[in-house]
């Protein structure tokens, strides 16, 4: 059976790699993959593959006590992770197999142990990638005695967790089958946790010296105290398996490393045996889970996976009553507002969060000057308004980027291309404008007068009004760029709300973000010139009060550009051929 499984896994990975390589013949995937690889190299791989760092010795400046602290900290984290499946509601989800594996292997003369071993072997690819990313994240192990010690430790921990989660899932299933309800199970685990904490508290009270006061404690004293708690009593017992898994990473030399590896492997072996010897029937749960995953994968492939799938009974309230007569683009606007959902909630958050932060900070702001809190809130909300103006069009996507996946339906409607484009960009424009206005209003309202810079309330009002006029226009241009890109290069853009993964997807996102930024600057240039000209002409007459008027002139230029863009994009939409552009041929 091992040979059959090895053949299956090798062929799967080989063909997966080949199909990805073949896809690179299409320029969009090749360029995206190159950009993605460059990104991963510069931000992750460069430090891993650069010479001279592979045998870093333990820097003398690091106190070995830190290692104990790190080991105990991560052991506690592992303990929490191990307890989580028992506190989490719901039954065991079974072991994850693909639908094809279920169809071919479940009826085949293959033992359940063999199936579980196959699943464990399949998990190794993800584990190895996780090990690589984790080692890079931890500075390629430069703070550890040896990089390879860290690599092996991460592999041990991730393999342990993979095995444990499967075993825990099966055990939960078995408990359910034997009539142990979720509440009873949780009660047992909570009771165990309470007992552990109580025993540690008793131990601390009677056997461990009281730690020094927090203000006066030195680092050495704190380390000694942690060492005393972790190296004795119940904490030592409860944390031992997890510390055994982590211990090899902190070995000073290879001899110690191999010695510490034995207990770690023993812990792993125990969990493996627990999994293999489990009597729970995983087949039914696995079939349910595979069907669920297959549906999700299909949705991702076709781009129809909502960020959060709508739950039963969660119909969204329409923003206004739609009359059956009138301009058809209003129907698209109405539909997209419903699809975006939660507009009131977004505005409420934008108002409530600064308000709560302001109240909270004011309570703690003792004698720090009465202007500190409003200044922080005012500047933060102002910065957020700028953030949404520039990046909002990338985030609010209820327009053609979403609806091109429904183009088969929309194309049959008797609506002109211009109306479709207008209707599609209206909803995200309005949502972003409301968010920007809310933030600008908060910023302008709470920012204190800064007499030193002569920014009087009237100036603040002028700046606020100018921003309120200009920001939504800039967002509109950003949205039109994104929608034009969707019509011109749908293969380059992520359509739908689902997040795609992989090197090419990362590359594609980088390319479209940079291209959008460049186009936005170019599109804003005429408006910036108009703004500057109006500002300098008017400043001599009315001072800073000219800002809203200059903003109006600039907005007029932007809206004229936007109108030309809508007409042009309408023609693009009318000529749009989904069978060629969306890689879907229906002969």
């Amino acid at each position, binding site marked *: 059976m091992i040979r059959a499984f090895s053949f299956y896994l090798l062929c799967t990975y080989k063909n997966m790699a080949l199909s990805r390589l073949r896809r690179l013949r299409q320029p969009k995937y090749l360029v995206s993959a190159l950009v993605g690889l460059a990104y991963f190299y510069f931000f992750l791989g460069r430090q891993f593959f650069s010479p001279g760092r592979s045998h870093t010795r333990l820097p003398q400046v690091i106190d070995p006590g830190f290692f104990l602290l790190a080991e105990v900290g991560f052991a506690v984290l592992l303990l929490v992770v191990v307890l989580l499946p028992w506190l989490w509601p719901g039954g065991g989800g079974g072991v994850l197999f693909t639908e094809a594996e279920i169809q071919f292997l479940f009826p085949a003369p293959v033992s359940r142990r063999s199936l579980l071993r196959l699943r464990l072997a399949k998990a190794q690819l993800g584990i190895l990638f996780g090990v690589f990313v984790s080692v890079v994240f931890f500075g390629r192990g430069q703070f550890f005695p040896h990089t390879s010690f860290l690599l092996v430790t991460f592999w041990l921990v991730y393999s342990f967790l993979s095995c444990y989660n499967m075993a825990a899932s099966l055990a939960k299933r078995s408990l359910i089958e034997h009539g142990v309800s979720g509440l009873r199970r949780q009660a047992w685990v909570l009771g165990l946790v309470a007992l552990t904490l109580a025993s540690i508290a008793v131990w601390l009270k009677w056997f461990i010296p009281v730690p020094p006061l927090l203000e006066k404690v030195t680092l050495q004293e704190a380390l000694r105290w942690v060492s005393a708690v972790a190296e004795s009593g119940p904490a030592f017992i409860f944390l031992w398996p997890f510390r055994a898994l982590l211990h090899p990473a902190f070995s000073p030399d290879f001899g110690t490393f191999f010695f510490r590896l034995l207990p770690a492997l023993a812990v792993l072996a125990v969990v493996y045996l627990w999994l293999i010897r489990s009597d729970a029937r995983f087949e039914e749960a696995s079939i349910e889970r595979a069907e669920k995953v297959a549906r999700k994968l299909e949705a991702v492939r076709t781009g*129809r996976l*909502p960020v959060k*799938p*709508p*739950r*039963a*009974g*969660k*119909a*969204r309230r*329409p923003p206004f009553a*739609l*009359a*059956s*007569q*009138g301009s*058809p683009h*209003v*129907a698209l606007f*109405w*539909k997209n507002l*419903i*699809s975006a*959902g939660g507009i009131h909630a977004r505005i409420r958050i934008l108002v409530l969060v600064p308000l709560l932060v302001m109240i909270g900070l004011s309570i703690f702001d003792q004698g720090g000057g009465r202007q500190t809190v409003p200044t922080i809130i005012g500047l933060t909300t102002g910065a957020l308004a700028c953030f949404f103006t520039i990046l909002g069009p990338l985030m609010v996507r209820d327009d053609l980027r979403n609806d091109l996946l*429904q*183009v*088969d*339906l929309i*194309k*049959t*409607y*008797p*609506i*002109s291309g211009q109306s479709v484009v207008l209707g599609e960009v209206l909803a995200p424009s309005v949502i972003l404008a409301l968010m920007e206005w809310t933030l600008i209003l908060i910023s302008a309202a709470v920012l204190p007068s800064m007499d030193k810079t002569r920014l009087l309330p009237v100036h603040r009002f002028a700046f606020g009004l100018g921003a309120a006029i200009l920001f939504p226009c800039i967002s509109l241009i950003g949205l039109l760029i994104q929608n034009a890109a969707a019509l011109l290069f749908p293969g380059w853009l992520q359509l739908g709300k689902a997040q795609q993964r992989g090197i090419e997807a990362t590359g594609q996102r980088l390319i479209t973000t940079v291209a959008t930024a460049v186009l936005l600057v170019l599109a804003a240039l005429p408006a910036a010139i108009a703004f500057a000209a109006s500002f300098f002409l008017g400043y001599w007459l009315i001072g800073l009060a000219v800002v809203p008027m200059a903003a109006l002139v600039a907005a007029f230029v932007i809206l004229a550009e936007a109108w030309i863009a809508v007409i042009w994009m309408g023609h693009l939409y*009318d*000529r749009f*051929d*989904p*069978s*060629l552009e969306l890689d879907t*041929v*229906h*002969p």
Partner: protein
Amino acid sequence: MIEVTGLTKIYGTFAAVTDLSFQVKSGEVLGLVGPNGAGKTTTLRCAVGIIPPAQGEIRIDGHSLRESPLEAKRLISFMPDEPRLFDYLTVMEHLQFTARVYGVRDFEIKATQLLEELELSEKKDAIPSELSRGMKQKLVIACGLLHAPTALFFDEPLTGLDPIGIRRMKSTILRRARDGASIIISSHLLHLVEELCDSVLILKSGRKVIHSSIDDILRSLPELKGDTNLEEIFFHVTAEAEPGEK
């Protein structure tokens, strides 16, 4: 009336449909059949304006889909095999949205009648994720019929429907034809085509193999017996058209 003249659709170097011409008169039901990859769906998608043809002309009641697409599309209704719905619109909101797009007067009355006819009244506030596949299909049909189209295109109309739904769907198609609509049904279910359609258009490799009523086809093929059904005609015709096959 639906008029298709010289329709050609090419994907790269592959011709999905080549020089296809046919007419569907008012009140006529045409069955579009052919093996997988024959070009049925491409023909339907071109005819309803989803994809532009490389060559050829499509007219709906005299309106050219190329020159006056909006007028032509106001008369069209397309029911695809896979129901495509908006995730966050309820059943009633789908109808409301469709009414606005097509400018339907007295939408509430018509929508209520359609929902009752299709047994969707109880689900009018449900979103698509709460509907079964058959119900989604019914909603697509309700949206498609709301604006009283005169040219109806069905792609595998019975997929996902229960026996009652199938019977209702058949009667809906026939009633619309009696009211004067031109209807094209693309399906692999040859008994359905035989039962509902006045004429049959058989496609193979993007080309028209035969287009006529079943009786006329039988008359033109004397080698087939008198009681032959569409299935035997289909196999006979598509096998004969195989290049190099005797």
